[in-house]
């Protein structure tokens, strides 16, 4: 057997003396792609940085890393600089910050060429052109003189990939390259990475917390836990060949199917969808013909300000105890619709009925009604006033009550709601900053439950969470909905989440609801082209059905 392209031999990394990567060994052959998967903190990103010898200053590395048989460990800084970019390319998660905003994209791609010398400015430009063509940014779209802000997120990530491959590196490392992207863009970028690796005989290391992403691209999967590889298998479509308990847990999280409450059949869901009634009960949330316009900034003093219709006559209903998904990509208008539903911004037309009353009435009636609709937001880090302890945060919705509860009553209710979301009463005195993302999202759920609402709206509430934590939160939510007869409206771009938890789904595109119905029916037999496209773009594993949840 010839020497592998990359071999990592019993590598360890310690940060301030604490081991974070332990006895790690793997190899990548030319033209092969390896997926490194694990929850956050499993050491997968540090492994990627270790290969590039870009570890933080406090880190100490042991073991050997060889590229094409030559040890990278122990090389001088100058030697490493020559290798990074030329022999190893790297793509990062955030396409917004990986590019220099004040530099034309052609120059950014050409920069790699120029830094490694040996090419004239004209030749570097030609190579940049070729690299941008290779990543599918052809013609006017990929014109060399465009700036990053003129490009979409997916296009920016393509530029970053072009810069990484322009010198034809033997190895490409991509760290969560699609986490910040929409589903359809994610599918395109993943396909691009796979094709580049195959057509150029390049080794590819794809780092992700999401097995579904890994399964879509790689030849082999290495599962990392607590700084070491616990299992390495050949990638199959369903990854049923994973055997280690941790790998199985990751897979279960990726194909996620929380135990659902009393069966709500597809037929019943479809009937509720068609008639607008469920068991002859009027819906708890009835959103009718919402229209929202934004004024676009005037181009000149002489022209009229333009109007952008963000939401165009969108209607939806949510029944008691039902979980409804609202999916769409960024820019589809789902956030604008959500703000109108929450009564945060007034729509141009349409009305929102909550328990049969108009939420847009304003005044005292609106305050009373507001108790019945609460929300959980996307960012577990921005959802809480950093200066407030958990107890005060949880009591904020009490402002909606006519009579403020006594201090003892507050404490009792806070303790109760904390236990309900799987935290302890002792957490009331802590601050949100001391908590992990998952714990924070539990606190956010607790805050939403505190006024005993009928509907809770989730705005991408699990998107920022690690797969394992995401699965736990969804499990918690499914349980709470059954227990409290809560209705949920899940607004998300992630079809896997909707598939896992929603009874019914609305698909939104360019401000309109283009399709709706029972989730299972919409996902297995989509009618609208946009729904079909979204489903085709979602990694197969994430949509896998009927997985037995063996522990």
């Amino acid at each position, binding site marked *: 057997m010839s020497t592998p392209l990359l071999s990592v031999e019993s590598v360890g990394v310690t940060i301030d003396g604490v081991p974070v990567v332990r006895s790690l060994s793997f190899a990548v052959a030319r033209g092969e792609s390896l997926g490194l998967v694990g929850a956050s903190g499993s050491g997968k990103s540090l492994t990627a940085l270790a290969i590039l010898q870009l570890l933080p200053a406090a880190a100490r590395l042991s073991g050997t890393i060889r590229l094409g048989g030559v040890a990278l460990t122990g090389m001088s800084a100058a030697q490493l600089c020559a290798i990074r970019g030329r022999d190893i390319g790297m793509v990062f998660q955030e396409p917004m910050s990986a590019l220099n905003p004040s530099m034309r994209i052609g120059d950014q791609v050409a920069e790699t060429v120029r830094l490694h010398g040996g090419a004239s400015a004209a030749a570097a430009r030609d190579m940049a052109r070729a690299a941008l063509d290779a990543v599918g940014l052809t013609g006017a779209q990929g014109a060399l003189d465009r700036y990053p802000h003129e490009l979409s997120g997916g296009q920016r990530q393509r530029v970053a990939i072009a810069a990484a491959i322009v010198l034809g590196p033997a190895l490409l490392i991509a760290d969560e390259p699609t986490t910040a992207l929409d589903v359809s863009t994610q599918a395109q970028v993943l396909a691009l990475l796979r094709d580049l690796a195959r057509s150029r005989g390049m080794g590819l290391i794809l780092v992700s917390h999401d097995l579904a992403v890994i399964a879509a691209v790689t030849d082999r999967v290495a599962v990392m836990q607590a700084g070491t590889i616990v299992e390495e298998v050949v990638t199959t479509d369903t990854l049923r060949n994973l055997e280690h308990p941790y790998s199985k847990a990751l897979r279960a999280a990726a194909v996620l199917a929380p135990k659902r409450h009393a069966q709500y059949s597809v037929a019943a869901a479809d009937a509720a969808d068609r008639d607008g009634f469920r068991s002859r009960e009027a819906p708890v949330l009835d959103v009718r013909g919402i229209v929202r316009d934004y004024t676009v900034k005037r181009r000149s003093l002489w022209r009229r300000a333009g109007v952008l219709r963000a939401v165009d006559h969108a209607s939806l209903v949510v029944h008691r105890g039902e979980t409804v998904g609202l999916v769409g990509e960024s820019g589809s208008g789902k956030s604008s619709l959500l703000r109108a539903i929450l009564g945060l911004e007034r729509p141009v037309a349409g009305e929102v009925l909550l328990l049969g009353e108009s939420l847009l009435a304003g005044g005292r009636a609106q305050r009373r009604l507001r108790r019945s609709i609460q929300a959980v937001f*996307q960012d577990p880090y921005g959802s*809480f006033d950093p200066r407030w302890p958990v107890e005060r945060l949880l009591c904020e*919705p009490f*402002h909606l009550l006519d009579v403020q509860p006594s201090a003892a009553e507050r404490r009792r209710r806070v303790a109760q709601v904390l236990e309900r979301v799987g935290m302890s009463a002792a957490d009331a005195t802590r601050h949100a900053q001391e908590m992990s993302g998952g714990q924070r999202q539990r606190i956010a759920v607790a805050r939403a439950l505190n006024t005993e609402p009928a509907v809770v709206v989730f705005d991408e509430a699990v998107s920022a969470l690690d797969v394992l934590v995401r699965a736990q939160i969804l499990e918690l939510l499914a349980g709470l909905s059954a227990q409290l007869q809560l209705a949920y409206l899940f607004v998300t771009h992630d079809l896997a989440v909707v598939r896992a938890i929603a009874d019914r789904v609305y698909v939104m595109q360019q401000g309109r609801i283009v399709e709706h119905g029972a989730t299972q029916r919409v996902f297995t037999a989509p009618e609208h082209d946009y729904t079909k496209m979204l489903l085709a773009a979602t990694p197969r594993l994430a949509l896998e059905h009927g997985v037995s949840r063996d522990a």
Partner: protein
Amino acid sequence: MKRRAHTAGFVVGALLTAAFVAMALLAHFWTPYDPQALAIVDKLEPPTWHHWFGTDQLGRDVLSMIMAGAQNSVGVALLSVVIGVGVGVPAGLIAAARGGLADDVIMRGNDVIFAFPSLLLAILITAVFGPGAVNAIIAIGIFNIPVFARVTRGGALDLWSRDYVLAARLAGKGPLRISFEHLLPNLSGLLLVQGTIQFSLGVIAEAGLSYVGLGAQPPSPSWGRMLNEAQTLTALAPTLALFPGLAVVLFVLGLNLLGDGLRQRWAR
């Protein structure tokens, strides 16, 4: 918030600032000599054991005048910051909360004030309303208003987009309540840093105004007028200009170091 070790600059700045503020407070109760007492026989003495900083052309004790001048400086700068905060912060909060016309009116009004060179504006005001410490405070205070309004509006606009403010709105809280409960506490660091900077600018502005005779009026002592009077006597008594000059420089330096240190602590 994680407490980090203070930088050397922060410590030096805090010590210098504390020393001047303490001096100003002390001067309220005690100075070595009466800073206004004339003793022509002792005029223009160099620093001695009796008069550490020497005496001026009228025989007044320079150390006592510096101390009383500190009282004047701190008072003027502090009160003008209070005016700036008192008007600018609510204006900024309203502009951010209401948006639209209110925002335009408030911010364009600020631009008008901002467009005047600060010292020129102060001279204009003191020229119209007459010189004196009170008018100096008002003049410098007016200049502080747009600074605080802008800082507050910028910070508040950022906070308005945070999810926790959304959550507060969902809890039925109005803009006023949200501004007090969520925005102000989270802007306090920013405002403290800006306050320190404006304080130091206030010290300089006060010295400048009294240097040209528009600040505190004789006989009440001020650093700016001491500098002015010492100017003509530089050849005779070089130390006379040195001490008030040093006082201004060190106090402003201390405040700026303190402001920088605070900013680093609040940069999260």
